[in-house]
């Protein structure tokens, strides 16, 4: 499957990413649940990667990691690597399995989130489990819930905005 995305869809995606960054520091912290909060930037990136291919997914993951690292200001390399790998994984799912079905989208988002969380835990274990292993695992479980909730509607929105696989020029 070739992912050819028109320029206007890239512009729409970039704007959506900006809005997600704004919401990440205003709305997301108010939705803290069992040590986890929604990650709007990650959700937008993964939704875009699921509709594209692995190469595009890796680049989107990198872009999302850069935005997250700028907002957080710490563990920059770890965030970039974990988000790039997550975008790549989501892109692989999108390239091989994609259907506009909630199950595939949610499963793809869950896989991408687990890749990101697992990479982060491996690269920065002291940060990941700073309050103990139990709370860390709990935050991953709740994080899966947040991602599942966010990625599906964002995927549908991106499709409406023209983002997705198409015919090459």
């Amino acid at each position: 499957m070739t992912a050819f995305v028109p320029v206007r869809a890239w512009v729409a995606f970039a704007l959506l990413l900006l809005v997600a960054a704004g919401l990440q520091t205003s709305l997301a912290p108010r939705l803290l649940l069992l040590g986890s909060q929604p990650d709007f930037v990650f959700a937008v990136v993964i939704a875009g990667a699921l509709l594209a291919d692995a190469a595009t997914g890796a680049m989107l993951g990198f872009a999302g990691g850069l935005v997250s690292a700028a907002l957080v200001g710490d563990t920059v390399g770890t965030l970039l690597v974990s988000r790039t790998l997550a975008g790549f994984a989501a892109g692989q799912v999108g390239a091989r399995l994609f259907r506009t079905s909630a199950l595939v989208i949610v499963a793809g988002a869950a896989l991408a989130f687990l890749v990101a969380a697992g990479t982060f835990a491996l690269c920065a274990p002291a940060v990941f489990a700073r309050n103990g292993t139990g709370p860390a695992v709990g935050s991953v479980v709740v994080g899966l819930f947040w991602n599942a909730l966010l990625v599906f509607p964002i995927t549908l929105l991106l499709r409406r905005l023209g983002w997705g696989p198409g015919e090459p020029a």
Partner: protein
Amino acid sequence: MAYGRRSQARLEMLGRGSDRGRARARAPFVALVVTLALGLCLGALHNRARARGRSDVVLTGVRTALLPVQTATARTGALASRDTSGWQWPWAGRALAKENARLRAEVSRLTLASQQLRADADEAARLRTLAGFGARQRRGAPLVAPVVGLPASPLFDTLTLGRGARGGLKEGQVVRTPEGLVGQISQADPFSATVLLLSDPNSGVSAYVVRPGESRPRGVGIAQGQGRNWPLRLDYLRGTDDVRPGDRVVSSGLGGVVPADISIGIVVSVTEDKPRALKTATVRPDADAHLARELLVLP
């Protein structure tokens, strides 16, 4: 290399039977390797810049680009929640008038209190001179900075201020609310700054335990964060220190970074580590920076 007919057909279907097909199959992995390498380089450059006390140009640029969006969403959120519960925001005008009246009364009260404090400070300075102590260096008036971003990740407790180096903020400056100490500026970009909150596990400040009415502190320790919505931990109290729940914790001023006597919190519980002859206190912080719209930065 010769393949059987079925294998050849399968290879052609997969697109790997040709050079173009092989290149296409390799493309995602090439993209992955390039982006990973770029990410590792940026991470290493960031760590190097921070170790030298400089700001990371790439992240500073990204943060500056994101600042207008953060400010807009922060203001929208503030308008929706300003002293109006839930769905009353269309009548924000009435709520704003009420808040203005309350703030005017508060200003009057604080002006009177400030005058009294100024008089007390003058008397303390005179007494200090009489006793032969040197004059304490006066700090300038605190700078007010709006909060435009709350913690973006549950693993890091930082805030973004909508004022940066061009507005007089510098790395290391202490940040507080009228209620007490909140944290320190960890990074100052040209137009924004990042505050490392006291509740972040990377944060620590030297603190005294004091009891109202007593002139000498009951103990000295390091107040450390344990994460958002977790109490602070006051470590390295001596086992012989008489610290009890209800005692106040204030900044000690030791080290010269954080001024003395800024309120940190109240002791909630004390646990003993008898083998090491130490005590640890759990402290409920006085100030909650996550609810503040503006913070005070001490110059």
